């Protein structure tokens, strides 16, 4: 067998040519993505014009013209208003956010005890990070520490009382701390309770089923703001004076109940999407109800509804701002309350404060959303093509 006998067959490949410049370069990318037709070109130009029109003034207002240092309102006032800056100046007053930063984070929490919330945050991050990274082992223990041990430790640390820790009433709590505590408790409670409610609603037992339906429909039918307001205003009137349930606890309960009802409906959507065959297969294997749910149904159902669950979390995170109505000051509430401080009244402080609050909210919500996308991607292998 000689290799030369079939000379018309190639025995080596031609080295591949580089793609034509018009496809591979930036120009090629732009041609396919931005200017592929006259409609695309028009939209691209309009979008570019809008960005060029809006972005420079925004950057200028937020960073270049902004005031970064100062101790009171005169730092952010123009000459006309009694300050130092040039007439007609407008820019963000970050000095005010800097001055108020501790308050925005911790409310009126005693300044000499700030190590307590900081320690809680440290523990929280230390426990949450390994839980979020799939490679790290011992998820069960980790989750137990985060969801059971941490809340107890945090409760003792933040509120004080035992071990000679000074008592700090919840009326002094505020800012981002309150936002995070309410959302964390809401999230930690709503997921298990929501699962139970969803299962209860699909149960064969009439009393369980009816009570779950009643609970969900009742809670979903009333605005959160009404429940918070009732809990804050009406409840104390019924109770003996001095027996008041802590306002913060009332807010926690209200938010948790709410989130649970919404979560139940999201999860029920997932349960309904599981084909009947899966239930029957689990039955055929002789699994009892808890096993069937734990090992067959819920893993599939929860995976399906991750976007819905995270959506509820994000919605709840932002809903915490409603506690302002019962005079609990979350991040947004405390930022708005600070507008009343005559030491910092200027034309630009309200806008600066709101931008800051918006940015912090966005930071948290965006992180949640990115992480959920990551989890979805990881769990969704079977559906990918």
């Amino acid at each position, binding site marked *: 067998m000689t290799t030369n006998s079939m000379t018309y067959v190639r025995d080596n490949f031609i080295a591949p040519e580089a793609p034509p410049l018009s496809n591979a370069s930036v120009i090629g990318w732009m041609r396919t993505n931005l200017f592929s037709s006259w409609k695309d070109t028009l939209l691209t130009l309009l979008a570019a014009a809008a960005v060029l029109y809006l972005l420079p003034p925004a950057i200028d207002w937020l960073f270049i013209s902004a005031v970064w240092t100062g101790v009171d309102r005169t730092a952010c006032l123009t000459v*006309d208003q009694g300050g130092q800056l040039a007439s007609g100046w407008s820019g963000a007053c970050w000095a005010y956010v800097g001055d108020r930063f501790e308050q925005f984070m911790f409310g009126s929490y005693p300044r000499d005890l700030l190590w307590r919330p900081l320690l809680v945050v440290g523990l929280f991050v230390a426990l949450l990070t390994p839980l979020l990274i799939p490679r790290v082992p011992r998820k069960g223990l980790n989750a137990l520490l985060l969801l059971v041990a941490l809340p107890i430790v945090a409760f003792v640390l933040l509120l004080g009382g035992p071990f000679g820790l000074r008592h700090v009433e919840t009326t002094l709590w505020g800012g981002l701390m309150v936002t995070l505590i309410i959302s964390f408790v809401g999230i930690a409670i709503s997921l298990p309770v929501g699962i139970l409610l969803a299962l209860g609603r699909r149960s064969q037992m009439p009393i369980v089923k009816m009570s779950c339906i009643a609970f969900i429909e009742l809670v979903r039918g009333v605005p959160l703001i009404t429940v918070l307001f009732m809990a804050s205003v009406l409840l104390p009137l019924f*109770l003996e004076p001095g027996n008041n349930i802590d306002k913060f606890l009332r807010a926690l309960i209200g938010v948790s109940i709410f989130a649970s009802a919404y979560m139940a409906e999201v999860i029920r959507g997932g349960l309904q999407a599981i084909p009947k065959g899966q239930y029957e297969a689990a039955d055929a294997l002789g699994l009892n109800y808890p096993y069937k749910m734990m090992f067959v149904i819920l893993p599939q159902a929860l995976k399906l509804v991750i976007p819905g669950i995270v959506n509820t979390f994000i919605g709840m995170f932002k809903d915490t701002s409603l506690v302002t109505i019962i005079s609990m000051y979350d991040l947004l509430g405390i930022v708005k309350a600070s507008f*009343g401080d*005559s030491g910092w009244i200027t034309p630009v402080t309200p806008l600066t404060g709101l931008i800051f609050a918006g940015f912090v909210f966005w930071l948290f919500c965006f992180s949640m959303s990115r992480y959920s996308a990551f989890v979805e991607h990881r769990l969704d292998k079977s559906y990918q093509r």
Partner: protein
Amino acid sequence: MAKKIVTALAGVAALGIGVTTANADTLSDVKAKGFVQCGVNGSNLAGFGAQDSSGNWTGLDVDLCKAVAAAIFGDVSKVKYTPLSAKDRFPALQSGEIDLLSRNTTWSISRDSQLGFDFRAVNYYDGQGFMVRKELGVKSALELSGASVCVQSGTTTELNLADYFRANNMDFKPVVFEAQDEADAAYNAGRCDAYTTDASGLYSIRLKLGNPDDHMVLPEIISKEPLGPAVRQNDSRWLDIVSWSYYAMVAAEEFGITQANVDEMKGSDNPDIKRFLGEEADSTIGSDLGLPKDWAYQIVKSVGNYGESFERNVGQGSPLKIERGLNALWTKGGLQYAPPVR
């Protein structure tokens, strides 16, 4: 059925209120727990109640809470503040969550009778006023005929505005906004000629405008808004203490006693001043109130007299720069008047 439930609930509510208000003795409660729980404004009115950057409460209304604590305990730090919104301030007082409501609350007959509160002292005489651009050349609200006026909707302010213009046979164009921030912005952008709200609010809004010196607050005040502390009804000893804590501040101003010279004044020969500061041996003014002998001294020492508190929080010593006006002493053409201390 629904009606029955509502009736039952109302009954329970009434019972609850009845239980909480009957034979209360707030002073004993306060002494037992060791602090005064004071309901204050948590947000929107600069100079009356706000937290500074380090979390300390300041303001004219806050000073009254401090005065009460100084009178009882001789220590202004024995106050715990409950920031309250306009909506939940009354239930908070009714339910006993707070001992004293000092949150720029207008004393009106319905609040005094129907809500079951008692008012006596007025620590700030407020009223609805107008702010205009100086370039309009208007010097009086009576020259505002035909003007467009920015106002917040759903408030008594809006009704007062209509009444005032109708009573004076003037036309006006209301520019109504749901939120106060929107109204502020609209006035700042020149969408209306005048802005109306309570005068105390006008001064703080003025500070948010591009150029405060282009605007002026007109002299006319078209409504009565006496702001003062409120306590639960049928507790006259507590009402006495709250009212006299405030009167002591006014009396101190009348006597010319200030935070700085109060120690010096203790040696004064004036019998009124000696009695006031608890320097007369046989005087029982303090103990009759259920307070220590030097209660008034403690108030002036730690909070100052009324004028000092006013100037520090809302007057010339603050960014608000509100004139004394109606809140000057009665001897200087104002309404601030303290009954005699004897």
